[in-house]
């Protein structure tokens, strides 16, 4: 046991040092492509760190979000905005001063912190023991994180889902492009060059896409018993569709996936989540009190968690799809109207 802990702390130190090293490398690099690649690696390492710290659910989320979607979005954006960073003209002395002073104060503050892994730290004394000891009787779900997320703190999670939905609307408002039917053929010719080249890639990916979707459903429904849940499943499902878009082009994907339907599903997920709370209210319980959903409280809890995880999964998946479609669509729009935008920016620069 002692030896295992030693190894754990060694891995902990190595991973954290790698994180610091990568962060410093990100500061120094001017090539934004390399910065984005390093940010992807940063996400991977922090996810491994979360596994060492026993936070498997968090690692699951970080794996799909930090390493996958976020790298992807940044990459799409730097293809639109240019790849190199211009050097700043003023000296960063003031910034260094601010950072060093703040960091020094924060490090001075850490000396009062409880040590890593201390069992008597204040955080472990209030509500956590109840979650760990009682959740099996009260909620009946082995994964305590899911129990807390979907049952004890369901209202909080509802707020998070609304935030994600709002972000989807924001991206839609900022980037959506009005498309005309006759433009699709032009777009096809832009996209085809990539697809012709990678026959093997296309065939292997075709085999992978159903598997990824199946795995997303497994994560969705297995979230009560292992790491997983609606958030992770939504992101994984969205990444399957993103893979399809990457390989077969945006216009083909638009024929397969109806954009209006996806937007409706995003709204439907939030509504569905809220309605579960309303139904429990109408049945005589509190908002998101699942005990009253069924005659047996435990069965009610199971039903409630299942339903709201569906709502979360729907919203997260469709918002991620909306975000990616809009970024890729904007890029396509810029490619088509490249001259126009060039002219505008030249005019701005010239005057």
């Amino acid at each position, binding site marked *: 046991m002692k030896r295992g802990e030693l190894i754990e702390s060694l891995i902990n130190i190595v991973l954290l040092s790698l994180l610091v090293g990568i962060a410093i490398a990100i500061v120094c690099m001017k090539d934004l492509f390399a910065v984005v690649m390093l940010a992807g690696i940063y996400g991977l390492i922090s996810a491994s760190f979360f596994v060492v710290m026993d936070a498997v659910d968090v690692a699951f989320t970080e794996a799909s979000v930090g390493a996958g979607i976020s790298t992807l979005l940044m990459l799409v954006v730097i293809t639109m905005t240019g790849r190199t960073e211009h050097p700043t003209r003023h000296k960063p002395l003031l910034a260094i001063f601010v950072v060093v002073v703040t960091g020094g104060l924060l490090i001075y503050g850490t000396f009062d912190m409880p040590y890593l892994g201390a069992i008597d730290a204040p955080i472990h004394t209030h509500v956590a023991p109840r979650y760990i000891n009682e959740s099996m009787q009260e909620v009946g779900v082995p994964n305590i994180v899911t129990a807390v997320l979907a049952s004890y703190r369901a209202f909080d999670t509802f707020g998070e889902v609304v935030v994600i939905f709002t972000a989807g609307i924001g991206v839609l408002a900022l980037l959506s492009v009005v498309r005309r039917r006759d433009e699709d053929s032009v777009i096809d010719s832009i996209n085809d060059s990539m697809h012709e*080249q*990678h026959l*093997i*890639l296309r065939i*292997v*990916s075709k*085999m*992978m896409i159903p598997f990824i979707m199946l795995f997303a459903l497994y994560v969705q429904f297995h979230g009560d018993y292992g790491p997983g849940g609606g958030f992770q499943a939504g992101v994984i499902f969205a990444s399957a569709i993103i893979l399809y878009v990457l390989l077969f082009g945006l216009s083909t994907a638009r024929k397969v996936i109806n954009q209006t339907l996806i937007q409706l599903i995003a709204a439907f997920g939030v509504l569905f989540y809220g309605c579960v709370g309303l139904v429990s209210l109408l049945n005589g319980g509190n908002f998101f009190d699942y005990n009253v959903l069924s005659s047996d409280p435990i069965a009610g809890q199971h039903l409630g968690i299942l339903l709201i995880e569906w709502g979360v999964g729907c919203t997260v998946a469709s918002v991620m799809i909306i975000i990616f479609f809009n970024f890729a669509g904007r890029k396509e729009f810029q490619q088509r109207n490249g001259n126009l935008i060039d002219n505008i920016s030249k005019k701005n620069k010239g005057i």
Partner: protein
Amino acid sequence: MIFDLDIIRELISALFLFMGSFLCISGGVGILRFPDFYTRMHAVGVTDTLAAAMILIGLMLQNPDGLVVIKLSLILLMTLFINPTASHALAKAAFHNGLMPLIEKNKKNNSLPDKKQESEKG
């Protein structure tokens, strides 16, 4: 008898893990030391397929429970599918975009920009 089998299993597992780690490290040194992209890709090929397979098989032997072995073999299957495909696509994209392998014959081609400058000067 069962005890003996367990020891043999452990030994084989340790052997697989050792081979895997060795190949991992050699591939890692390769990606750092090799001179150009295509040779580095060769080093990565070793770590991504054979070393990964060795380590995963070693882990399967560590814990011959049903679900764990199934998940490990799923990972193994996916590594064997995905990594060669990704490497293939990567090499193809690199070649299409004009990255030349570092061989003697291509040295002349590679110094094209310099030549242009020289001719401009002349």
